[in-house]
C-alpha cells in the first residue's frame, strides 16, 4: 500500500476544505497542538465538536418550536454554537451562526429558519468530509496520523 500517496490524498483533501472555506486558520492552530504525546488530538476534538454541536442544534430546534419569536433565547443558543465553531475553525458553520444572530437582531423568523437549515447542511457536510479525511489518515498509517500532513 502506498502510504505516501494516501498522505498526499489526505493533504489534498484538507487543502480543499480550506480553499472552499469550510475550515479556517483556527483549525491549523488546533493541529499545532497535536504531538507524540497526543497523537489523535485533532480527531478527538473534532469528534467532541460534532457531538456537542449536534446537541446544541437539536436544542435550538426545540427552542424555535417551544419559544416562538423568543429571539433572545434563540440568540443565546446560537452564541454557544458559534463559540464552538470558532474554536475549531469550522468557518462556514460559524458564518451561518452569525447570519442567524443577525436575523435574530432584526426579528426575522424566516431568516432565522433559513440560516438554521443552512447551518445543518454545513454541519453534515463538514462532518462527512472530516470523517473521510481522518479515515484516510488512519489508512496512511501511524506516521500519517501522528504527524501533521504537509499542505
Amino acid at each position, binding site marked *: 500500500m502506498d502510504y505516501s500517496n494516501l498522505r498526499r490524498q489526505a493533504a489534498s483533501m484538507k487543502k480543499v476544505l480550506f480553499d472552499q472555506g469550510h475550515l479556517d486558520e483556527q483549525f491549523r492552530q488546533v493541529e499545532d*497542538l497535536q504531538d507524540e504525546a497526543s497523537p489523535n488530538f485533532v480527531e478527538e476534538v473534532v469528534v467532541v465538536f460534532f457531538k456537542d454541536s449536534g446537541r446544541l442544534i437539536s436544542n435550538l430546534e426545540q427552542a424555535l418550536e417551544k419559544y416562538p419569536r423568543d429571539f433572545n433565547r434563540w440568540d443565546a443558543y446560537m452564541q454557544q454554537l458559534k463559540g464552538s465553531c470558532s474554536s475549531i475553525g469550522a468557518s462556514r458553520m460559524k458564518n451561518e451562526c452569525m447570519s442567524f444572530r443577525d436575523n435574530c437582531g432584526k426579528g426575522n423568523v424566516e431568516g432565522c429558519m433559513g440560516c438554521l437549515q443552512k447551518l445543518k447542511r454545513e454541519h453534515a457536510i463538514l462532518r462527512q468530509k472530516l470523517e473521510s479525511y481522518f479515515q484516510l489518515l488512519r489508512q496512511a498509517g501511524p506516521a500519517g496520523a501522528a504527524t501533521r500532513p504537509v499542505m
Partner: protein
Amino acid sequence: MAVAIAEAPFHVLAVDDSLPDRKLIERLLKTSSFQVTTVDSGTKALEFLGLHGEDASISVHADHLDVEVNVNLIITDYCMPGMTGYDLLKKIKESSSLRDIPVVIMSSENIPSRINRCLEEGANEFFLKPVRLSDMSKLKPHIMKSRCKEHYHQEEDDLLSNSDSNTSSNPTNNSSSDTISNNSNPTNYSSNPTDNSSGDSSSARKRKAADDEILPKTSRPRHS
C-alpha cells in the same frame, strides 16, 4: 536563605462549560507545561478550590490550613450558565485565601465594557477566544508575580523570627520593581516589566497591582 523553587509544574484550574473548549484549553495548557484540572462550572471550581456553600466568602479560613489543592492560576470562560466567569471571579476575590490566585477570563465576545468590568474586579488578564498557544506565555508572569509577593512576605517572616537587623529591601515595596522577567528561572528578579500591556487591544490591558496587601502568612499552602 535559599528560596524553595517548585520543581513541580504550575497547576492551572480551567473552567468552561463547553466540552470542545475544555478539551482545547486543557491541551493548550498541557503543551505549555502546566498541570491542568478542568471543571465545567463555576460551582465545581469553587468546590475544587475548597470553598463551600453560599457564604463562601466568609467561610473557610480554618479549612484552608490543610487544603490539599494547590492552584497557581484560574482560567475561566465568561459566559457560563448559572455562575458566570465574572461571578466566579468575584467569589474568588472575596475569599481571603483565594484572592491572590491570578484569574484569567476568556470570552468569545469582544465587549469592552465586559472586559473592563472583569479587570476592575481583579482579573489579571482577558483572553479573546479562540485562545491560542501564544496566549499561554502570558500566564506565567502572573503566577510568578503572585509567588513573588508571597516570597517577599515569607522572607520578612524569616527575618523577623531571626531578630537580626533587617538588611533586605523593604518587602512591602510592591510597586513596579517586583516584576519578574519571563524566563524559566523564578529567582531572576529583573526589572523587566513583562506585566505591562503588550500594546494591542483593550483585551491586553492588565491591572497594575495596586494592592500591597499583606498575605496571610500560613493560610496559603506553601508550594513544595
